[in-house]
């Protein structure tokens, strides 16, 4: 098996090459570069609204682009669309499978999607003619659970799965347009770039990957975490990626420097990160943990500047609205809270 041995050697050489190349561009650290910046003052957000109605653990939430409506998914078998200002339930959608793990709101506001242990991504039309919300499509092809989904438009959605792949779907035909394979472990989370040209995935192989949507090509792979990456998101300018892991840390990777810039960690934080979101300017990183809290970090200074304590169980999901006005947390305690 001479060829196999040669390929293995080449693989090791290339990995060393990448490590060396990254090092040559590491002329400083974010910490040094931001040394002249003053740490953000203590951030104290208050619960402004509590959204009550789910009867079991909430696994996911996603804001609509109008910064008012949001959708949540619970293992009580319901998707609820909320008006976060009035706390009214705009829609309560019963699901075929209650084992839901993710949900998403289309940018247009017309559709929502969800999926989980049924291995499918179900698309619901909120604006149907007769006013009833029905399943519009069931996207089935994954051979593992659906961990995350995000709409590109009313006709395309990207999903990540426990089968280690991500898929770009054509919603109208219900077929796979592209399959993004490469992760060596369950894909747990995905995030779409602000310009909709790329997406990032975090997986149980401890790496994050940047994918070119149209070329179906993995452009970059980021390592460093010591356990599963559960949450991932873009820094608001689209040039950096934030990850949250079971190793209790979050990391910031810059796409153009192709490397990790900083790790957000504290010896007092021992619980895995379940979810994360960046504030509108990118200055604040909000990370939800297994220990029922959300830690707020000054992203440039890597200092903890606040804590959101208010849930009675694990914070499973978090999102900042598009206008940056509020942060929404969802928990296993069955409640969603709106903070600012």
């Amino acid at each position, binding site marked *: 098996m001479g060829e*196999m041995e040669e390929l293995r050697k080449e693989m090791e050489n290339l*990995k060393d090459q990448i490590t060396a190349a990254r090092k040559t561009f590491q002329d400083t650290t974010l910490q040094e570069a931001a040394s002249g910046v003053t740490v953000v003052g203590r951030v104290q957000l208050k619960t402004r609204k509590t959204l009550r109605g789910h009867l079991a653990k909430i696994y996911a939430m996603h804001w609509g682009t109008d910064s008012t409506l949001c959708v949540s998914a619970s293992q009580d078998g319901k998707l609820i669309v909320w008006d976060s200002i009035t706390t009214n339930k705009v829609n309560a959608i019963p699901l075929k499978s209650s084992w839901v793990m993710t949900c998403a709101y289309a940018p247009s506001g017309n559709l929502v999607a969800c999926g989980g242990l049924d291995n499918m991504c179900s698309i619901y039309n909120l604006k149907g003619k007769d006013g009833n919300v029905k399943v519009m499509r069931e996207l089935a092809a994954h051979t593992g659970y659906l961990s995350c989904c995000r709409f590109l438009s009313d006709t395309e959605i990207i999903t990540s799965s426990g089968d280690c792949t991500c898929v770009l779907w054509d919603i109208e035909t219900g077929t796979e347009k592209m399959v993004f394979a490469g992760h060596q472990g369950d894909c747990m989370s995905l995030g779409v770039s602000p310009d909709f040209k790329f997406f990032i995935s975090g997986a149980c192989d401890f790496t994050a990957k940047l994918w070119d949507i149209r070329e179906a090509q993995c452009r970059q792979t980021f390592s460093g975490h010591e356990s599963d990456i559960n949450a991932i998101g873009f820094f608001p300018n689209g040039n950096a990626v934030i990850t949250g892991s079971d190793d209790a840390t979050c990391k910031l990777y*810059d796409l153009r*420097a*192709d490397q990790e810039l900083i790790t957000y960690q504290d010896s007092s934080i021992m619980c895995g990160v379940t979810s994360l979101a960046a504030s509108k300017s990118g200055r604040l990183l909000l990370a939800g943990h297994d220990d029922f809290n959300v830690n707020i970090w000054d992203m*440039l200074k890597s200092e903890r500047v606040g804590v959101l304590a208010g849930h009675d169980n694990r914070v499973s999901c978090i999102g900042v609205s598009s206008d940056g006005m509020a*942060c929404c947390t969802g928990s296993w305690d069955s409640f969603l809270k709106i903070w600012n």
Partner: protein
Amino acid sequence: MSGSSHLVAMKKVVEQLRFEASINRVKVSQAAADLQQFCMQNALQDPLLTGVSSSTNPFRPQKVCSFL
């Protein structure tokens, strides 16, 4: 997996690594400066950072005061 499919898989891994090794990179100093600049430029438009007064907070209805 048979021997030849191991080989095919390995070739793909090597091809991917070749691609990832060849990308253009930017210095960390440049990347860090750009992130900082973005944060600074958008700081005032970040309500979670600046705080929101109750008069402009959609989630906090203003309480009506009346003289008794």
